[in-house]
């Protein structure tokens, strides 16, 4: 038997567990509803004098708000409860009997937990953008993709941290709470960083935050809220790239722990 079939077996089993009927349908419904309802607050009068990229930014920002939160809840549920309960109940040990390396098993679990959720999230969002403002999606595709990349990096980072916590604690409940706390902590940390930046008139605090949450740099690039910091477009790309390096490192730690240190 090739490696492909056991991988698909684990993936199918993970998808079956993570998206039991009607979980997937409820989340798809909420994604679609959230996307359209909040999109209506779209472009404000401030876009009038702005560039077309700034208009795109202002159009997509409200579109992202609630669906991104729904995406995070779904991913947290899948990682904390899905993987957590698999570890608690010993289902992971069953997978170890498959002719598949440990990293293959974790990849299948993450593809289900993160990949499918991301696919539905992006599928609905981009389709909605195409329905609502067809002129935005195609001509400004690079801006649209950059916005999604910048806004998704922090949730992915928390997902990585949750993966580590789940593997370490082997429990879903505590990890889920930690993930939600971490997610909301970012808004508090951003507020503190903003106060510090204003007080010192130095963008350092905001730049540090941008390394893990590049949406802040992107917001500053398009809207220019602070006078003392105007990042260049290349700088925004750099922050986004750096944030994904951090995300990749956290997932690498997760893979290393799962492959070598997890005693099951």
């Amino acid at each position, binding site marked *: 038997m090739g490696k492909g079939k056991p991988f698909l077996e684990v993936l199918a089993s993970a998808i079956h567990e993570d998206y039991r*009927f009607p979980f997937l*349908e409820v989340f798809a419904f909420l994604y679609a509803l959230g996307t*359209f309802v909040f999109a*209506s607050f*779209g472009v404000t009068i401030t876009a009038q004098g702005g560039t077309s990229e700034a208009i795109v930014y202002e*159009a997509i920002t409200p579109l992202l708000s609630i669906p991104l939160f729904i995406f995070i809840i779904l991913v947290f549920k899948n990682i904390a409860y899905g993987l957590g309960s698999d570890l608690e109940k010993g289902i992971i040990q069953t997978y170890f009997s498959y002719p598949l390396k440990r990293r293959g098993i974790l990849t299948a679990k993450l593809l289900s937990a993160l990949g499918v959720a991301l696919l*539905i999230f992006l599928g609905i969002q981009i389709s909605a953008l195409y329905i*609502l403002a067809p*002129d935005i999606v195609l001509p400004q595709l690079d801006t649209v993709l950059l916005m999604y990349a910048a806004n998704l990096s922090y949730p992915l980072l928390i997902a990585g941290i949750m993966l580590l916590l789940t593997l370490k604690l082997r429990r879903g409940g505590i990890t889920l709470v930690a993930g939600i706390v971490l997610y909301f902590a970012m808004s508090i940390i951003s507020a503190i960083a903003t106060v510090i930046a204003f007080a010192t008139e130095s963008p350092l605090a905001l730049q540090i935050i941008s390394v893990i949450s590049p949406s802040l740099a992107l917001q500053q690039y398009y809207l220019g809220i602070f006078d003392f910091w105007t990042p260049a477009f290349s700088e925004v790309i750099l922050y986004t790239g750096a944030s994904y390096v951090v995300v990749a490192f956290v997932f690498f730690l997760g893979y290393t722990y799962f492959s070598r240190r997890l005693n099951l």
Partner: protein
Amino acid sequence: MKRWTALLGRGGTVLIAISLALFLVSLIPPWQLGSGDGITEVPAGTFSPLNNAPPFFQPLKSYYDTVLTPQQGVQMELTANGTITAYILEVNTQTIFNWISEQQQVPAQDLNVTRLEEFLQAHPNSIGWQQEINKETIEHTYIPTKVTNVTIVYSNPSSENIGVNHSYRQKSFIAPGNKVRNIALWTTPIGFILAIPWLANLWKQRKQH
């Protein structure tokens, strides 16, 4: 085979869920973002953007300039006491004045009707809608197909001064209702076709257990 049925079936149920959300979205009524009523005096042989200034401030100009999206529209009612042409242009008034000033080497506030014609010849894509009004009242709702600046301009090539009464309501829609409803109407049957074999399987299995 069973796995393919499950995969297609779940795809179908997801399509049904999304269609349901789209149906709900299409049922939400629009809400008003802003409105304006007033009169714009258009002297003979000139053009003028819709003036929002109250009648006693008419010498002051407060032109109607806004940004609309495919989710926002302007519903208007225009009444003229002569023959004029009303345009909805997908630019802001400043763009028109700047173009006249730069291209025609004349002061920006030269509102001669030929300047507008020259601008429209140079920018035919900027015309979102146009209609001749001949001593009558017309109603029109304009919803752009893209995110765009919008202004309303009256052109009076006649030799008489004309007053145009306007009443407009800017509205915001959750989504372009017809478009969203059509998508939902197409995806719902596809979803059911995909989901029925899987749902039937599920029903059989539940019955057996």
